[in-house]
């Protein structure tokens, strides 16, 4: 794609602005992308640990509660993990697709969906009712996948 001559400075300005927003938070785009990857790994580990409890047939309420808290805590800050300019252009290993930023409203809605489900999961786990928690875990974990299907690059082998 070639930009019209007049648009090129505009595009360059936009890039500088995006970088500025990320830097304002004290992070380069690459730092933000790496932090995000660490956060996501933590969520993956929590999802694995939570799933293991329910697959065992005898979930331990204390373990389930701990993992539900981890998920809810992460969900609360998740929207801040995606500053502008922290995509694959900043760190090639980032799996965040450009659509995260081009469809910011759609992404915000998907993140909100996850936050609501994670809060319900945490609330259910706090009661110690494992049947209700198991039921609440499905939409929360389903929200991970729903968002990833649209906003994350498919895994490379």
């Amino acid at each position: 794609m070639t930009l019209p001559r007049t648009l090129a400075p505009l595009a360059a300005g936009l890039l500088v602005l995006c970088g500025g927003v990320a830097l304002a938070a004290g992070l380069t785009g690459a730092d933000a992308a790496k932090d995000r990857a660490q956060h996501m790994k933590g969520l993956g580990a929590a999802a694995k640990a939570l799933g293991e409890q329910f697959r065992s047939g005898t979930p331990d309420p204390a373990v389930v509660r701990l993992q539900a808290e981890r998920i809810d805590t992460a969900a609360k800050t998740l929207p801040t993990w995606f500053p502008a300019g922290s995509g694959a252009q900043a760190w090639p290993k980032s799996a965040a697709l450009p659509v995260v930023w081009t469809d910011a409203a759609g992404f915000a809605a998907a993140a909100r969906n996850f936050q609501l489900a994670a809060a319900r999961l945490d609330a259910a786990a706090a009661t110690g009712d494992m049947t209700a928690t198991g039921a609440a875990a499905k939409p929360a974990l389903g929200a991970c996948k729903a968002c990833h299907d649209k906003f994350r690059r498919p895994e490379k082998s």
Partner: protein
Amino acid sequence: MAKGRVWDLPTRLTHWGFAALVPFSWWSATTGRLPLHRLSGYGLLGLLVFRLAWGLVGARIARFATFIKGPAAVLAYVRGRSAPALGHNPLGGWSIAAMLAALALQLGLGLFSVDEDGLEPGPLSRFVSFDTGRAIAHLHHRTFWILVALIAVHLAAIAVYAVRGKDLVTPMVTGTADLPDGLVATRVAPFRTAAAVAALAAALVWFIAHGLRF
């Protein structure tokens, strides 16, 4: 030349099961269909366990003792100095062993693999951490190409024999082939042996799929 039995039914079924499920596993993994990938893996695991057991107690032609030969026999075959025989030739026998070993490695790693999201982990991944499971999953992706390379050699060998006028595919479908003079048809194993081995394989897969829990 008279037609006669070469491959017994259980050996043919496991063979075509492998041929169907290995590509299916690859497809389901590369398109992100992990629940299907898991089921396909269980199917392959059952077939592998069955085939390994069949190599010990099954039909004579399927037994490892029948077709795993020493280097002298392999060399003699390569030099064209072997007497005609039914079943795997001394070189092909090692190709089978290598493919079964690569499949066993692939399945073993898959059991401990964890996906990116931790949502569809392998049934034995509860014994490893998330990070270890992810590392095993990456290894699982790479070792797949060992299996692909061995299957490519297998298919190339079939093509070479076809060009030289020997059809290996039809006997693996029908179980029978024109027997060279002096060779008698192979004996199949009793049905009850196959049923017992299949039941054992199914039970083992069930146990592994439940994370080694009853």
